[in-house]
């Protein structure tokens, strides 16, 4: 990744024109060609620096459910429980964190009702109490890095 790639990432985290030739428009502001912009995006995706180039949806507005939940998993059973939790297709992210509540995962389901069902299934399967902490209010939508 070079400085031009960084500029592209910084600019395109902020949005994308919804017009007939959006790449050409963005390329113009960066003083590169449309072809170069497209090739650089292909490379950044291929190298895994970008997970994708597309929309972030408001899951609840699509009718889906979204939540963050935590477990306390005893150290000796951690890998087994991680496997059990990750096995659910609704689990989108899962992180081990340094805390008594040491496993934190994001659930995304196609219906809002499905959240509680999956959390109950996870509790039954793992034998760990689930702490469900759904979003009440959002103060920032960014997830934006200045490179």
């Amino acid at each position, binding site marked *: 990744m070079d400085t031009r790639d960084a500029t592209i990432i910084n600019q395109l985290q902020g949005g994308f024109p919804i017009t007939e030739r959006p790449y050409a428009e963005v390329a113009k502001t960066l003083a590169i060609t449309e072809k170069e912009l497209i090739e650089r995006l292909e490379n950044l995706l291929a190298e895994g620096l970008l997970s994708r180039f597309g929309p972030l949806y408001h899951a609840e507005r*699509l009718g889906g459910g979204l939540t963050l939940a935590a477990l306390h998993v005893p150290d000796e059973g951690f890998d087994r429980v991680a496997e059990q939790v990750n096995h659910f297709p609704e689990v989108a992210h899962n992180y081990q964190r340094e805390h008594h509540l040491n496993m934190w995962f994001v659930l995304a389901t196609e219906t809002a009702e499905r959240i509680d069902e999956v959390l109950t299934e996870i509790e039954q399967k793992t034998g760990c109490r689930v702490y469900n902490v759904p979003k009440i209010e*959002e103060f920032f939508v960014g997830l934006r890095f200045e490179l």
Partner: protein
Amino acid sequence: MGLTARDQQLVAAIQGGLPLVSRPFAEIGARIGLSENETIERIQALLADGTIKRLGVVVRHHELGYRANAMTVWNIPDDQVDELGRRIGGVNFVTLCYRRPRHLPDWPYNLFSMIHGQNRAAVLHNIEHLIERCGLKAIQHEVLFSRRRFKQCGAHYIDAPPHQPVVARMHSPSEGQA
């Protein structure tokens, strides 16, 4: 929910990413039987009503060198949480800031903020700075560093026809976005 069948098709068609071609909306439209103009109008409408929060690149922070992240959680009196949430969310190295429920007595924290950095020291430095800047000295907090990432993939919102790849990912959120 409020989405028409056609918008659902559109949401499914772009959830894996926009085509990297000169006229991406013409290509998306062709897949689902919309003209380029109709596709552009519907996407603009979905952005305007907030169904699409944003369209653009979604980075993999770990691969970009942001190898440490800390979910920093705060126990803020209920009558201050809106004000402090807005203040914390407005700081540029805070990537996510949500109010969430407490689970007393085990879990007293009601505000969650995600703070990334090149390494732990950078993250901790940012948290100190945040406490200074937002007046959080009296607020109980904890810093939950991530030790391992097991999974960062498929939030899958709407079924696409089987011939279309569906690889919707959420940021993450951070990652961690939920």
